[in-house]
């Protein structure tokens, strides 16, 4: 629902321009037909619409959307919580607006997770998992299990994890949930003694086949088994 937008003025040029700006940021933005399903409303006041009716409808909503009210001339807003945009709307103002509103919502405690595009703190710094997430949520992929196991054992950067063969959208979903649920530690790269070698995307990393944290013979045979199982059960 985070990127769902409703409008009573879908045919207006200003409204369509507004949406195309949103979609510059992420293709996930899209129209919905029911106002109650939308987190965002876009209203072009220059169209022939009943603004008072819309405002009353807005008043009755329990979960109020963020409203962009597009005008030709600056004037009074039907509701103070709405945001005024003068046509033609500058894209930087739209980005400011959604960025700020998403941030406000995220800092209020009972709002669900922000969308992946709206904040990805795990892309900076060193990541370490404190506990296993529940991988069943992300489909039955063994690559993700391997990545989680490594992040439980030792910290790594987001760029490094990507080189382990986990698809970025999947990784983002997992990290976002882990972050929200307090299972993920993110520490400052500069505080780590080895940050110079490990910080960048191009830093040398040990990929899975060579990765072997085994210290005892029992560990060695266990890691050998893991590798064999990956060969046997992970179909790409």
């Amino acid at each position: 629902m985070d990127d769902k937008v409703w409008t009573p003025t879908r045919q207006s040029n200003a409204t369509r321009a507004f949406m195309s700006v949103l979609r510059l940021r992420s293709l996930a933005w899209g129209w919905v037909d029911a106002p109650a399903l939308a987190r965002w409303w876009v209203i072009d006041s220059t169209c022939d619409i009943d603004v008072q009716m819309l405002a009353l409808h807005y008043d009755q909503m329990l979960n109020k959307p963020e409203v962009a009210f597009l005008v030709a001339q600056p004037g009074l807003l039907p509701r103070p919580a709405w945001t005024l945009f003068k046509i033609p709307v500058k894209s930087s103002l739209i980005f400011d607006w959604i960025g700020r509103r998403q941030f406000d919502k995220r800092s209020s405690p009972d709002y669900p997770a922000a969308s992946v595009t709206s904040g990805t703190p795990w892309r900076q710094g060193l990541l370490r998992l404190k506990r296993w997430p529940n991988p069943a949520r992300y489909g039955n992929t063994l690559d993700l299990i391997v990545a989680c196991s490594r992040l439980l054992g030792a910290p790594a950067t987001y760029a490094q994890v990507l080189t382990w063969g986990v698809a970025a959208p999947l990784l983002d979903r997992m990290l976002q949930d882990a972050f929200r649920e307090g299972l993920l530690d993110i520490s400052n790269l500069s505080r780590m003694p080895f940050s110079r070698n490990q910080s960048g995307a191009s830093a040398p990393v040990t990929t899975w086949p060579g990765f072997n944290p085994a210290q005892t013979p029992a560990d060695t045979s266990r890691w050998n088994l893991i590798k064999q199982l990956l060969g046997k059960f992970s179909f790409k």
Partner: protein
Amino acid sequence: MNIVLGHRATQQVAFAGPFGVGKTTALRAVSDIPVSNTEELSSELFKLKNNVDKTTTTVGFDYGEWSFPDGMRVGLIGLPSQERFSAMWDVLLPQSAAVVLWLYGNTADALTDCRFWLDVLIRRGAVARLAVALTRLPFDASEQELAPFRHLTSRYHPLAPVLTADPREPASVMQAVMMALSTPSAASQV
């Protein structure tokens, strides 16, 4: 104390948990060979060395197997659920490379079950490579649903995974096994 599972398997993975939870089902889902019960296995293939009480040697546990291109074989063991067969647990658990504890995720006494089995496992040194798999829950069960299990499990092993899993789904069973095998030892966490 060693038990010979045929002469072929060099490692083994064990499935533990209450009666009817899905241990045999999980074994069947991933085993390369038809899962047999030790009662049905010929004594040629399966020999218990003399460390198990005679009365318990006739008690069946499930046996399946993985084989690999290099000839390696891994035994898959479904432990009997009933406490009166605890001699089997004594023998089979300490030598398992990984243990998946299967639990009903949807019953009122799930946590009591969980504690009972974690005690069974820790007394036999079998929590280091453990995954706790909750059945009969939606795959995307909320963190709040998993949290009590996580909390309890962490008292036995700080990193032991808790996941939702369906014993009928091979990929789901493999996830649980892989998590059990690949959990770092607690000592390596700072």
